[in-house]
């Protein structure tokens, strides 16, 4: 138990270690990135991915999977670039409605005992459809205050780093260190015992899906703040990125086992993997495969650690 490198500790450290290794490789390949300006450019697109990964993590936590997240974030991005900019009140209402709709989805999945993969896959077409109605052709403009926030240049530490640390810590405290958080996670790990203890599983699901909706909205807003405008397909990649990021950061498909800080680190790792491969001057046809290889490598390391744990 007192061994310096227990499997448990190793597993906790693995996401951070993979990120550190990747960062070092990037600094070596492209020393320009080792500056305020470089880190800013390298990491700013990781902020919306991290928010999306946190959203997916809430869903993973209650043993579900969300295949509509990318389409949902595209929709919130479209709303942010149109209504929130021109008629802020309507925009706020629409975004709140999105969050409520997500909570309602959680209730539907729980009450009718439906497989979340099917429901969210179906919903992804609904979200995309609404997004096209909101913004038929690419365009719109980011509200000034979001643009200002996302392009802040604080002294000393680049804004994306501050944002990523804050996101990780806030969710960590809320989900891992609070009494309510224990119930929420417990419902994913062992639903029956939580229900027997008198907690409403329906309320847990609705809460988690609403939280996912909230972070989906934040992700869409952050994305528009960076791109300055939206289109209906802007974030489709985020569905798979968020799942991969959540798993890479130490989450598992069994429910209850999640890590907010790990999820943020996983999201950054995925975002940086793309930069790393492009700095390597790898042929783009190989890049997706190489991104997958990095993912498999990290997961294989984790399996090795788990295997060691079982042996002991």
């Amino acid at each position, binding site marked *: 138990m007192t061994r310096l490198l227990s499997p448990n500790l190793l597993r906790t450290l693995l996401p951070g270690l993979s990120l550190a290794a990747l960062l070092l490789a990037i600094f070596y390949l*492209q020393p*320009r*990135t080792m500056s305020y*300006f*470089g880190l800013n*450019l*390298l990491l*700013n*697109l990781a902020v919306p991915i991290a928010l999306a990964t946190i959203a997916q993590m809430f869903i993973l936590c209650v043993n579900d999977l969300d295949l509509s997240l990318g389409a949902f974030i595209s929709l919130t991005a479209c709303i942010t670039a149109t209504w929130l900019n021109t008629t802020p009140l309507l925009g706020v209402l629409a975004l709140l409605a999105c969050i409520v709709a997500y909570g309602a989805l959680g209730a539907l999945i729980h009450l009718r005992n439906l497989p979340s993969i099917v429901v969210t896959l179906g919903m992804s077409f609904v979200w995309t459809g609404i997004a096209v109605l909101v913004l038929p052709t*690419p*365009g*719109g403009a980011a509200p000034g205050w979001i643009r200002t926030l996302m392009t802040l240049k604080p002294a000393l530490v680049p804004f994306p780093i501050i944002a990523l640390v804050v996101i990780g810590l806030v969710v960590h405290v809320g989900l891992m260190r609070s009494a309510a958080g224990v119930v929420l996670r417990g419902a994913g790990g062992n639903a029956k015992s939580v229900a027997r203890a008198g907690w409403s599983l329906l309320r847990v699901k609705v809460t988690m899906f609403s939280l996912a909706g909230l972070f989906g909205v934040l992700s869409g807003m952050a*994305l528009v*703040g*960076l*791109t*300055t*405008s*939206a*289109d209906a*397909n*802007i*974030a*489709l*990649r*985020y569905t798979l990125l968020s799942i991969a990021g959540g798993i890479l950061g130490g989450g598992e498909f069994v429910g209850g086992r999640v890590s907010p800080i790990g999820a943020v680190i996983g999201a950054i790792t995925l*975002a940086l993997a*793309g*930069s790393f491969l*492009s*700095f390597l*001057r790898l042929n*783009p*046809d190989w*890049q*997706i495969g190489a991104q997958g290889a990095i993912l498999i490598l990290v997961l294989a390391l984790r399996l090795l650690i788990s295997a060691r744990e079982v042996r002991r």
Partner: protein
Amino acid sequence: MKINTIGKLCILATVGSMATTSAIADTSGKRIALSNNYAGNSWRQAMLTSWDKVGSAAVADGVVAAADAFTTAENQVTEQAAQIQNLILQGYDAIVINAASPEGLNGAVKEACDAGVVVVSFDGIVTEPCAYRIAVDFKQMGKVQVEYLADRLSDGGNLLEIRGLAGVFVDDEISAGIHAGVEENAQFEIQGSVHGDWAQDVAQKAVAGILPSLPEIKAVVTQGGDGYGAAQAFKAAGRPTPIIVMGNRHDELTWWKEQKDASGYETMSVSIAPGVSTLAFWVAQQVLDGNSVPQDLTVPFLEITQDTLEESLANTQAGGVANVEYTLDDSIAVITGN
């Protein structure tokens, strides 16, 4: 300030020696990158091949230090935005973009401009004001057809219009140009209009369907990829072959050549050359050189005439589109002509 003075010097130098290739030394240390969102059709492949050919020649001649092409794997805005930011970090002096979205990359483009990187967009252009745009004037592409016909047929006559894919921006633009041309040349009248979807087989069926209801047709105005199909439909209906404007495709040029040899058939052909990527390359080089370049440029079309037919056909691959690569002098002509 420094750039400005160098720029003025270069303009003087360019004016002084416009005919010869000028200002080679100034950009020899500069690196230019191509950020491309999609490579999945023959036009894009030809575009990349042209870039590679002209770019590597420029590197070999010492005009620039690097001309590297990067294509994103998934044609997604977020992916291309990240790619552009990576190119900034890699220290490229100019980034040439064929964009996945006219608006979605503006944030990344602004980052590039703020970092002092020259951004030139072409074909898929970006709207961020600090970038240079090389746009396609599809309207004009429709209009030149009618203007050519006005030269050939001074008495005017009936026209058949073949359009592209319904609901696509390009189709609306070319068609608007054709109609504007007809309005200016009242001797012409468009008797019928069909959608050929830029594909020979679709165009042939559509034309065959409408032909019985039409009076004598003097000429067919097209959008490219439909001229050969139209010719086949007229032949099958046993009607005299009108003047069919072609769209630079290999099968169209081949058919035109056969008719020319057999009966002295005359027409014209017009489309956009994939080699426009090389124009964007030279524009970026000129901006780096400090020359003043208008923020918005228009791509000249590639027109093939009766005289240039043989040469163009010989240079076009079977199944491909006629292409042209720009030299520095061609590009300067485009820049100053604007």
